[in-house]
């Protein structure tokens, strides 16, 4: 069931939910709750490491590749903020939803059914590459990170978010999210595939990138939202740069 960096069995799980990508009360509710916090942290990293245009379109001029874009939950906001976004996903059902949603919202986003290694092989390079909640669904994280890192331009940034492999994440992502709260369908996550921040950082370094930022994301049940926190024990985000040749960007 493995196709390059893609696990087809994992895709089946998402195909079943595709129509509900944009329903914040549906099976992808955690992504909606996490999204503002994820974007906020991501913007902080962009501001620190990339060209920042400021104003209402701070990402103007940046070329972005969103790997595993799903229904476009990240591609749309980044486009509104001024970036030129290419969203790729190996699952055509996701892209159908993403294209229709962007059309209604009046946003121009290049969506393509592709694997990240296909994009890398074409020689396309980007200022910002994102892979949010993706690496925990791929069969070979090292190969995935290597292929995605190849699409990062010198001076560019790669941002990932995922779940760590700890007792806390097993309780939160499997016991709570799948069984107790019923937030996501059972079997959405395979805990054994989760990477600890140190393991993901090692993959990034091996791919020629330099990790520059790490944050945990914690759920606040009282306010039904996520906030950033120091502890990357459950959900976390990591950012890495490809240093420009002959010095740091």
């Amino acid at each position, binding site marked *: 069931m493995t196709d390059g960096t893609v696990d087809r069995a994992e895709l089946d799980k998402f195909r079943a939910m595709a129509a509900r990508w944009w*329903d*914040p*009360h549906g099976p992808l509710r955690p992504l*909606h*709750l996490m*999204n*503002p916090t994820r*974007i*906020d942290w991501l*913007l902080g990293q962009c501001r620190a490491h990339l060209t920042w245009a400021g104003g*209402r379109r701070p990402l103007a001029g940046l070329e972005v590749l969103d790997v595993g874009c799903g229904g476009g939950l990240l591609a*749309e*906001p*980044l*486009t*509104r*903020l001024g970036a030129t976004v290419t969203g790729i996903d190996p699952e055509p059902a996701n892209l159908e939803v993403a294209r229709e*949603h962007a059309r*209604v*919202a*009046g946003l121009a986003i290049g969506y393509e059914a592709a694997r990240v290694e296909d994009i890398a092989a074409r020689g396309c390079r980007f200022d910002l590459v994102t892979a949010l909640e993706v690496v925990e669904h791929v069969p070979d994280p090292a190969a995935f990170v290597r292929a995605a890192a190849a699409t990062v331009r010198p001076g560019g940034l790669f941002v990932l978010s995922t779940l760590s492999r700890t007792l806390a994440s097993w309780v939160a992502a499997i016991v709570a999210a799948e069984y107790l709260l019923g937030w996501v369908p059972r079997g959405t996550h395979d805990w054994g595939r989760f990477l600890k921040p140190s393991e993901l950082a090692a993959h990034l370094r091996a791919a020629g990138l330099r990790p520059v930022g790490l944050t945990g994301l914690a759920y606040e049940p009282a*306010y*039904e*939202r996520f906030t950033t926190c120091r502890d990357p024990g459950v959900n976390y985000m990591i950012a890495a740069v490809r240093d420009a040749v002959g010095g740091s960007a």
Partner: protein
Amino acid sequence: MDEKRAVARPHRVEVAIAGGGLTGLALAAALGRAGTCLALVEQAPLASLVEPEYDGRVTAVARGSQRFLASLGAWPAIAPEAEPILEIVVREAGSPVGVHYDHREVGNEPLGWIVPNRTLRLALQTTIADLTDLDLFTPARIVAAETGTGGLRLELADGRAIETALLAVCEGRLSPTRELLGIGDRRFDYRQLAIVCTLRHERPHRGRAVERFFPDGPFAILPMRGRRSSIVWALEAEKAAAVRALDDRAFAAEVEERFGDLLGGIEIEGPRFYFPLVLVESERITAPRVALVGDAARGIHPIAGQGWNLALRDVAALAEVVEERLRLGLDPGDASALDRYAAWRSFDGLALVSICHGIERLFSNDVGPLKLLRNLGLGLVERLPPAKRFFMRHAMGLVGELPRSMRSARSA
């Protein structure tokens, strides 16, 4: 399909505001300052809303609300007409027990300010006049609203159309747009009329607001600039009709009888205004692409002077939610945004609806045991400094999860 509609280009904005009263103006000012693309729809010409005969009421502006107005840049224009409240005395008529709030118990600042509504309107109208991304539709009326995936399409009576990501309904407790959207409400008629007017008096009020409870309704006297006060007298409908028939001199005598001669001789200034008192609580404060704000969400009894302060907390919270969504490139009117607003505001609104309704019901009767309980309650609050400080801080609008614009510089 209607040819004319298909051809007419709708006006596209991020947020459309229905209602150009105090709440709608404050929301426009708050969102406009953040650079949001706005449309404001108001049924009356804006100039007619600041004519002296339009509204003779005053508003109690709590500390949190004052901070918010200052953050909008509107306070300097309001301050010359704002009288600080230094003391509040709450007492049941004919009873020796009462609560006395003194601003010195919670720091050096006043408990709040009494400001004529007209002053607030003028200041906020001036504030929004400077906004470049605001389009005024006035006088205009929304006659249809249609939800699509990408936004809400509003049609105006004159044939124009607006497309918006979010509609904020700020039309007050009897909001026609809320009705148009099919959002139901619960109502409670107090069968009272509020009589509002301005008094001139001989002696200074020293910043003291007095609230007295009579079995037929509460009576409040609120300090204004100079030797003037505003009275808010809620009275059973039948009695109010009789009072309404009195000339100014007889009316003044009636006021003096209720109030004693604490302020010396009194004289009525300007016209008297009458408002029926109805509690209106909307079934919900959001609908797809719609947020109800202020009295349109719930119009409470004016007994504690909390109505507009509650509305401003809605305004500040909604503005913060919208600004945050736009800053992150997110849709400002989708279900996630509205969930956040509803979760944030529902508790505060519910608490005040119950508290103000409860106070009013508790005092507006002559039942013996209740009377005892009331005196006991007021006596207890008076004797428990932490409880008293909590009530004071709540009335000052400083309790709960405050929008950033209402926090003090120290805690922000």
